[in-house]
């Protein structure tokens, strides 16, 4: 029974696609309005809230002091995790982390980590003894579609506002974490046969596979992920890759503007 709705939705999506239309009236590569707030959580050393249509996501940054790995004595570490808890949607059930939430966390983590925006050596306190471990935790509060992009944005925005709590740990004065770059994710879902940008909830329910692309400041790829059932051609990828470049640049501007204020 649950699958009846998706099937009807799929038919409607196909009909809309023929007219190059979307269910909420957007153009094929038009994103929803984004509201970004930062420094919004007491106790987090960096924080951000992203609202994107019906999607609401928080990210918080915490620090801890760790012993470095013996083979990398001057490198700290970065970890990014996402929780898709039952608060976010009727469809999420309690229990250990689902494959969906593991994938979400790991894709966001790879985009940030592989962009090299955090120099692991800059997290060293005493070589071989003490380094900072940086932990970004993402909390999806309302899933209204395209939580990947919302989580990626919240994570990097929170990270870029983070203050290293050196005083609390008795290792000097607090200072702003150095973040060199703003990797941004853009996600596309096949809906009614063609890829659209920034799917809403209905488009995800009535759509097929999705592609997540993380792009750095210079337009380089840092992370790719194809998810769900479906196949695509190299030509289709080339088209959305070009769109992704443009979209990531726009979102990077939103982060920069927020920081300028």
């Amino acid at each position, binding site marked *: 029974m649950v699958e009846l709705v998706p099937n009807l939705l799929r038919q409607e999506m196909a009909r809309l696609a023929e007219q190059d239309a979307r269910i909420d009236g957007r153009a094929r590569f038009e994103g929803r309005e984004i509201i970004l707030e930062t420094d919004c959580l007491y*106790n987090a050393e960096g924080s951000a809230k992203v609202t994107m249509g019906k999607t609401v996501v928080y990210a918080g940054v915490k620090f801890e002091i760790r012993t470095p790995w013996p083979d990398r004595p001057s490198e700290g570490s970065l970890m990014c995790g996402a929780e898709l808890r*039952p608060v976010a949607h009727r469809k999420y059930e309690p229990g250990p982390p689902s494959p969906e939430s593991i994938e979400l966390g790991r894709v966001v983590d790879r985009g940030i980590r592989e962009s090299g925006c955090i120099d692991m050596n800059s997290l060293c306190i005493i070589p071989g003894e003490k380094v900072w471990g940086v932990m970004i935790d993402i*909390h999806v509060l309302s899933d209204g579609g395209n939580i990947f992009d919302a989580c990626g944005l919240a994570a990097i925005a929170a990270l870029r506002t983070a203050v290293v709590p050196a005083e609390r740990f008795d290792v000097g004065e607090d200072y702003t974490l150095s973040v060199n770059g703003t990797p941004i994710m853009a996600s596309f879902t096949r809906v009614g046969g063609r890829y659209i940008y920034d799917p809403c909830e209905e488009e995800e329910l009535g759509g097929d596979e999705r592609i997540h692309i993380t792009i750095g400041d210079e337009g380089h790829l840092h992370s790719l992920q194809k998810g769900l059932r479906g196949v695509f051609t190299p030509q289709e990828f080339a088209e959305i890759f070009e769109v992704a470049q443009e979209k990531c640049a726009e979102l990077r501007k939103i982060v920069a503007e927020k920081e300028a204020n």
Partner: protein
Amino acid sequence: MGGYGDVQLLRDDGLRLDGRKLDESRPVSIQAGILPAADGSAIVTHGLNVAVAAVYGPMEAHPRKIQRQDRAVIDVRYNMAPFSTSDRIRPGFNRRSREISKVTAEALESVVLVERFPRSKIRVEIEILAAEAGTRCAGITAASVALADAGIPMRDMIVGVASGKIEDTVVLDLDKAEDNYGQADLPAGILPNTGEIAFLQMDGDLSPEEFDLAMEYNFKAAKEIHEIMVDALKARYDGGDN
């Protein structure tokens, strides 16, 4: 309760470290309907605590063995976000959050008209985004508003409030330092219209007389916070949907 004598918590002028009077609550603000994916939702800011609640349902109760033939069950999850505390919390439930979830569910089942929804389940998700002592009470308040926002019929709301004891003095609404170095904490869930109690815990040391005064403070605070809850729901219905 960390115990007495470690730290000064009352100033020479008789006020508390943050300038509050003995029977003064931290500032509370509430907004309803803030999570579009949920059937009902609310955010409560109580001092520096931030508690969000989402309500889903009534829906079919799964698995079958949790079903009750004559009423709905209320399935509460109280969860602290990893970044909500000074030291990061590892994700996942711990014993404390399981106990709070249990007693919160039992309190809410005492006011929701569960008999109207046999064999069904109402999910209440409480997420603590920032913690500064008093999160279980902020969570109960948020859950009550979210249930009302979801249109779930209740015979009364529950207001989460707490009093405690610092330096041998009963005070209303302990903050973080007062909780860490105080002598007692008495959180309660009060029905503002009937004056009944649906939730009660206590730990520390209270004489019978101190207990009576602490409960008096709790009732006073419940009245104040209830007004803010009502205003939040009014704003929600006046302001239209999100």
